[in-house]
């Protein structure tokens, strides 16, 4: 990467690096594994950046790279090409500062996270992007399916979660009464 490109990449990453932590939130429970994943996403973004041609927004592209890395990490196949390297100290410092964020969610999000753990990695991507405020068209662009398909699948997820959420949240409510 040329110095100008590198500077552009770093500038964009400073603006959008929350994406990495949001995706890690959706795909990783374990603290150590999460650190590996965030580092792997950073490396993968840096490797893929020369191919970023601006046809989609940087955030769309970054979500694609982060989610592809997370899914490959989960399924372990993509890791064959990945390289395990010691955690960079600057990244380690940032991770240490961000780490409490993963646990400071409210009760509802905690219940949701438990439900998300039971979902397959593709539906998990849809839900995460929906929660993050993306439209069906944007989600379609990231995931690579049609917007109509996104809407259909989101309706199914909503219906399923509604029932599961009530069932999972119930015992906690009883304890407080």
């Amino acid at each position, binding site marked *: 990467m040329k110095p100008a490109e*590198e500077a552009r990449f*770093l500038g964009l*990453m*400073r603006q959008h*690096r*929350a994406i990495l*932590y*949001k995706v890690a939130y959706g795909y990783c429970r374990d603290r150590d594994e999460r650190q590996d994943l965030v*580092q792997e996403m*950073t*490396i993968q*973004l*840096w*490797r*893929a950046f020369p*191919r*970023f041609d601006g046809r989609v927004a940087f955030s769309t*592209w970054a979500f*694609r790279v982060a*989610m*592809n*890395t997370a899914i*490959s990490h989960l*399924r372990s*196949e*993509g890791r*064959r*090409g990945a*390289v395990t*390297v*010691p955690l*960079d100290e*600057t*990244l380690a*410092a*940032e991770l240490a*500062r*961000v780490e*409490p*964020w993963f646990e*400071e969610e*409210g009760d*509802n*999000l905690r219940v949701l996270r438990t439900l998300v753990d039971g979902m*397959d990695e*593709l539906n998990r991507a849809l839900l995460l992007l*929906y*929660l*993050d405020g993306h439209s069906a068209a944007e989600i379609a*662009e990231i*995931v*690579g*399916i049609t917007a109509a*398909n996104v809407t259909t*699948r989101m309706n199914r997820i909503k219906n399923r*979660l*509604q029932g599961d959420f*009530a069932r999972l949240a*119930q015992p906690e*409510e009883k304890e407080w009464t």
Partner: protein
Amino acid sequence: MDVTLEQLRSEWTRHADRLNGRLSEGLELMREDALRGHRERVKRGTTFGPFAMAVWIATLALLGHFLATHWHQPLLFAHGLVLDAWVIAAGVGQLRREQVLRGLDYGLPVVALQARVEELRIARVRAFNREFLTGQIVWWIPLLVVAFAGFGVDLYAVPGFAAFAAWNVAAGLAAIPLAIWLSRRYAERLTRHSWVRQIADSIAGRDIAEAREYLARLRRFESAD
């Protein structure tokens, strides 16, 4: 308790705002030097790295030398040729797979990239099976003959070696279907994380079946079924 996904979306927005707050505290991070550090470590950690490459080239050079010095001895030359062909095929295959893996564009939409990864997985398992099973023939007699010939000993001059070699090659050929049968029958009983189990799963075709199933799932996901 009745919580809608829209309410959760609002809660998530507030949660994400807290993340932005934490991230804005450390703008000194993600500097050029940190990125360069990543790059150096990635270069050093490549699977088919300089050491593996040096070993591969040295093996090819040794086998090349063997072929050049034994061309007038057809039997020894043939063994060297078989070994050389196997080493070239295995090394080139590994290099090509790594090149393809490194060339994967993670900026592609999720479904497209994941399908590509699964196709590569199938190709990798097939190549491993091919190399492992043909290795059952190549790794024994040809390697033994070439290694001894390298030190000036012609094993075929030893009485009974030709018969031993013929039986060994026959056993190697028989080991291929036997390994497949044993893997299919007993792989389930092996420890989940052992390397033996991984090889058995690969030979038995379970990895390929799993990859095909995932590809089918991706297709269903694309078509909203």
